[in-house]
């Protein structure tokens, strides 16, 4: 029996944190656009964003493996840029996680922005606020719940992912071996004690995060104008 390894735990947390930051940066403008656009392309974009919800992780992982691999478009570009491959690397995992968790960030934000609506933004404009100021000082505070939901859901979803990681990242300690993979490996090798420790740890941690977020959410004023 080996020592309990904490490496996968830190790697999972790091992956989830980086993924959430990237996700919020990308999802916010897209959610904003989806909430307010009158373009017909909107339904197509919404469908693409929602795809990871319905596709099996292995299908998603398979396409990502091809796309990120040295022969794929993104993989070749990355290899030319950095000299290393994207597959079986932390950077590759981040890209895969961002795509995998995209709907979990976009949808709460889009719903929140739609809830805020155009009315307060128009009011802000007549008061002299530029569109960016109106976004930062009116829409974002009013959509705070949406941000919190997006953050929690995409963080938790990234922590819990397994299939996509296995396809794209494999099982390299310190680089791609996250908690879910480690648990799987421990079970495969019948190391139930380690599996228990990691599984229970993830369970308790996830539960505590969700409880504190819901408690925080409840205390926030409903920001529907």
């Amino acid at each position, binding site marked *: 029996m080996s020592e309990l390894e904490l490496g996968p735990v830190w790697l999972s947390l790091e992956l989830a944190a980086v993924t959430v930051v990237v996700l919020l940066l990308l999802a916010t403008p897209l959610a904003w656009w989806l909430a307010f656009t009158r373009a017909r392309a909107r339904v197509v974009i919404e469908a693409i964003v929602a795809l990871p919800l319905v596709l099996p992780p292995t299908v998603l992982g398979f396409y990502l493996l091809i796309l990120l691999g040295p022969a794929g478009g993104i993989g070749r570009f990355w290899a030319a840029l950095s000299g290393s491959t994207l597959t079986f690397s932390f950077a590759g995992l981040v890209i895969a996680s961002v795509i995998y968790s995209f709907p979990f960030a976009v949808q709460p934000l889009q719903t929140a922005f739609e809830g805020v609506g155009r*009315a*307060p933004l*128009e*009011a*802000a*404009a*007549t*008061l*002299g*606020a*530029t*569109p960016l*100021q*109106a976004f930062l*000082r*009116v829409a974002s*505070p*009013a959509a*705070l719940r949406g941000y919190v939901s997006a953050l929690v859901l995409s963080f938790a979803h990234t922590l819990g992912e397994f299939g996509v990681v296995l396809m794209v990242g494999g099982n390299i300690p310190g680089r791609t071996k996250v908690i879910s993979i480690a648990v799987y490996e421990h079970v495969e090798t019948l190391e139930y004690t380690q599996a228990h420790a990691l599984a229970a740890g993830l369970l308790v941690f996830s539960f505590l995060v969700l409880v504190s977020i819901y408690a925080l959410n409840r205390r926030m*004023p409903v*920001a*529907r*104008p």
Partner: protein
Amino acid sequence: MATLTLDVVVEREGFELAVKQEIALERITALYGPSAAGKTTLLRVIAGLEERARGLVAFDGAVWQRGARQVPAHARRVGYVFQDARLFRHLSVEGNLRFAVRHAARRADPTSVIELSTVVRELDLSPLLPRRPASLSAGEQQRVAIGRALLTSPRLLLMDEPLSALDIGRKREIVPLLERLPEVFGVPVLYVTHNVDEVARLASDMLLLKAGRIVASGRVADVLERLDLDDLTGGRDAGAVLHVRVEADRRGAAALRLTEQRLHVPVARAGVGMPLRIRIHARDVALATERPRGLSIRNVLQARILRIDADEPINVDVLLDVDGQHLRSRITRDALEELKLEPGQAVFALIKSVALESTTPF
């Protein structure tokens, strides 16, 4: 006086707004018309909130829109009071007011800045400052919204039915405040309403909008007395506006002076010597060829018939001159024929006292 030049078209499914008008804005100008006439749309075009607008919008030499190119709303220096107030719920009342100050600062020229302290004092907002918009009554919210719009130091204040969400009591509170806005803050107001009593009470000039077109414009008294616009200016509620001065106001008996004659009402709701605008419905004015005796009606005015409008089968409208002002009377065709009324004839106009009271519904 400021001039607003409009030559705009807004096309929507099943509706087209097309307005070509030069509007001299002085004090309060009412934009009046039935619902779905396009009043709010026109106001939004002026504010820069209507993407689909095409044409020309210019204010005092500054071009706000030419063709499809629009100066964005945030750069126009227009104050806008929305029908539903639209206060920011995540900010306190003070936060809402400071939002306007903060964002308007860079676009105002220092000579015409409206100060926070002035607005708080004039609109009596200090007790509300720390409160959240959600805890305010509809009337208080509207007062804050008016203050917030003023704090952008606008060159033009647009108001979209600011009284429509309020009950009679709240209206009474806000109307005197609205009346004083142009003087106190030096801002002309364009005021959207579908309530003809509000027009008569607040506005000096008016535009009459119907199905996306301006069908009449001018001084309020001139537009309201036009018999051909009856359907738009009130139909059954049609009437005329009289300018009077409060001569006496004792408990339960006030006297309002025209030039020569006076009217008696129970309450004047204004100080002695104050000018007052009152509206008298045509259906509340009866006519007599000689001064009647033994009558419960207390207001009998000497008048001269200017015009008789007999388009309708049952009722006719009679336009009267009373001390140089215009009054309208609606009587039956039978009565007209029996009394043999003709233009130029001297008559007595009988006005129910109660009619006068209902002319100031605020």
